[in-house]
């Protein structure tokens, strides 16, 4: 085990996978000479050369599609979006090409590609640079999607994605890149897709979440502990495939659920989780499930407005108290 930042863990995963498999290459804006807009690819150009660490023009649709074509011929591209906000320009290639290659060809062609980059809001970047797009990407059959919350998961899930024969989307968090944590040194350390992780054991209420919001949930659980409430935090880690067994196990234990996500509420990830629980664990519920999400508006710039728009520890605590029918001051 070593203590690494989330950024360093991703960098280690990229380097190890490129070392392991010569068909793996990294492509995107500023990934090479500039060492990555968020320095995730630092040092990779020096180590692997221009052939395998490819700086692109600002042409998201073009290089996303290029990656899909290269994957159809058997290469294993890792396509970096500087942020997923810019991936909106590339959605035709991700949704209409990558997600459908294997099905439309009845398995004649595979599409082993990774699309990765940060999702969600940072600080005061306003509406076009602050979007959490997990629900959009989770919507399409043919894609897989994971959202690592810790350095170890960042390494393990990215490595699983590179080794997977399907298109896998890895959504990182801009505000997570400096987060430190223990990361296994093993260059075969893989966190399988579809396996959730109980980040905090609890018995009174399940805070189910993914990505950056895992940390908001953990802070909320700490605050609740002071009030005598023992909250469980379940990090889904993958949104497709989804670890339904882990969700149901947690519901059966606590009988109360709050879902926390960075994206919008309408047709959000939480909506799907609520549907799954009501259909498969209805009798275990002691209260309606509540969701804490971004306000249903484009992200505002002003500091106070942005703060009000984002999910917060206070809102998660309040939601937990409501599903527990607790009177609070």
């Amino acid at each position, binding site marked *: 085990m070593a203590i690494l930042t989330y950024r360093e863990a991703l960098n280690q995963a990229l380097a190890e996978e490129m070392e392991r498999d010569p068909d793996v290459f990294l492509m995107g804006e500023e990934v090479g000479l500039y060492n990555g807009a968020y320095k995730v690819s630092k040092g990779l150009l020096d180590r692997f050369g221009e052939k395998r660490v490819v700086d692109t*023009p600002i*042409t998201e649709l073009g290089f996303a599609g290029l990656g*899909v*074509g290269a994957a159809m011929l058997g290469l294993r591209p890792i396509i970096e979006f500087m942020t997923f906000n810019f991936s909106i320009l590339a959605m035709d290639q991700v949704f*209409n*090409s990558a997600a459908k290659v294997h*099905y439309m060809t009845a398995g004649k062609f595979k*599409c082993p590609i990774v699309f990765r980059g940060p999702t969600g809001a940072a600080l005061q970047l306003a509406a076009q640079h602050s979007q959490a797009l997990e629900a959009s990407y989770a919507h399409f059959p043919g894609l*897989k999607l994971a959202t690592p919350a810790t350095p170890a998961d960042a390494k393990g899930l990215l490595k699983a994605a590179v080794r*997977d024969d399907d298109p896998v989307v890895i959504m990182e968090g801009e505000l997570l890149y400096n987060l430190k944590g223990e990361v296994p040194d093993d260059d075969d350390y893989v966190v399988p897709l579809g396996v959730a992780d109980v980040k905090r054991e609890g018995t009174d209420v399940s805070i189910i979440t993914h990505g950056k919001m895992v940390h908001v949930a953990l802070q909320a659980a700490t605050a609740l502990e002071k009030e005598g409430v023992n909250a469980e935090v379940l990090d889904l880690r993958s949104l497709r495939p989804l670890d339904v067994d882990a969700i149901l196990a947690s519901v059966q234990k606590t009988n109360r659920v709050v879902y926390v996500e960075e994206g919008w509420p309408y047709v959000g990830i939480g909506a799907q989780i609520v549907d799954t629980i009501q259909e498969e664990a209805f009798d275990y519920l002691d209260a309606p499930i509540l969701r804490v999400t971004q306000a249903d508006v484009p992200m505002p710039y002003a500091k106070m407005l942005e703060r009000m728009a984002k999910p917060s520890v206070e809102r998660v605590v309040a939601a937990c108290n409501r599903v527990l029918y607790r009177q609070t001051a």
Partner: protein
Amino acid sequence: MAQTKSARKTSQSGRSSNGRDAGAKKGDALLGLDKGELHAMLYQMLLGRRFEEKSAEAYAIGKIGGFCHLYIGQEAVAVGSIMALRPEDYVITAYRDHVQAMVKGVTPNAVMAELYGRVDGCAGGKGGSMHLYGAEQNFLGGWGIVGGQVPLAVGAGFAIKYREQDSVVLCYMGEAAVNQGAFHESLNMAALWKLPVIFIVENNRFGMGTAWERASSLYDISQKASAYDMPSAVADGMDVIDMRRVTQEAIDRARADGTPTLIEARCYRFMGHSMSDPVHGVYRTKEEVEEQKRKDPITRFIELLKDNELLTDEELKKMDAEILKVCEEAMEFADNSPEPGIEDLYTHVYATEDVHGRLFFDRKNRLEQS
């Protein structure tokens, strides 16, 4: 605005600015191809024509569903260009893809079965007319979003260069695709990184019902290459020999050092945009279509071969009868192939389904899991 050096070089290579009116001259008109090669080209053109005539019949009686875009009138483009390839080269195109697939080696049986939506189709009945594929034949499809296949072609070119091979990619698109951003993003990357992709714009004059001059500020499509410092050429898309000559030049450049080329193939669509669209109407007159049919690329090629005493009526008749038999057998094969069943619905969504957790979110899958 002056053209770039490389674009100027090829545009000065003696091409008519209007390929449709350029006639093949006798003497140099056969590119040194022998009788067997020329007959093979005629065979592929006639096969494409007869196959699609049969497809139209099958569509009319409901054997083929959905969208079905016919290539009738444009056969010289696919045949002239693809037959200049080696087997290891790649082809990718849009949704008007039946003839490209067959010339690249996907069998008429597999194509017809796909049009019928049967399990023996080249995409197992999951693609249909617009999404034909051939893995062994290096035929990359078969894509339904206008311009969407163009970045994929550049990706194939990237993979070829990455592996230090000398294959090339032919990427077809209709003229309407050049107004999409994907076209421009792709040409830029292909030229910037010298990727061996030959972009063939099949200018059949109409994007559905919108004539080219109503859709583009620039009439001459080949000039768009100058924006990317890319060689370009105009080919007579109604002349299979001219198509082959122009494509061969581009292939030679691509094999030598990866230089991509933009080819504008001027041709004409004899049929409606798809089987559900009229042949003529508000956007073009019946007279215009009839006028263009007098330049039928197959008739024209037959005349050229006869003029050079390389084809007899007897040989033509025999070839046509053989092709008709192939088409009828393909229809019979398709008819006899089973329809896919419920067991096929969820297969192939993912290459790796052996994962923890749930990939599908509907009742069928839940029942299977319970």
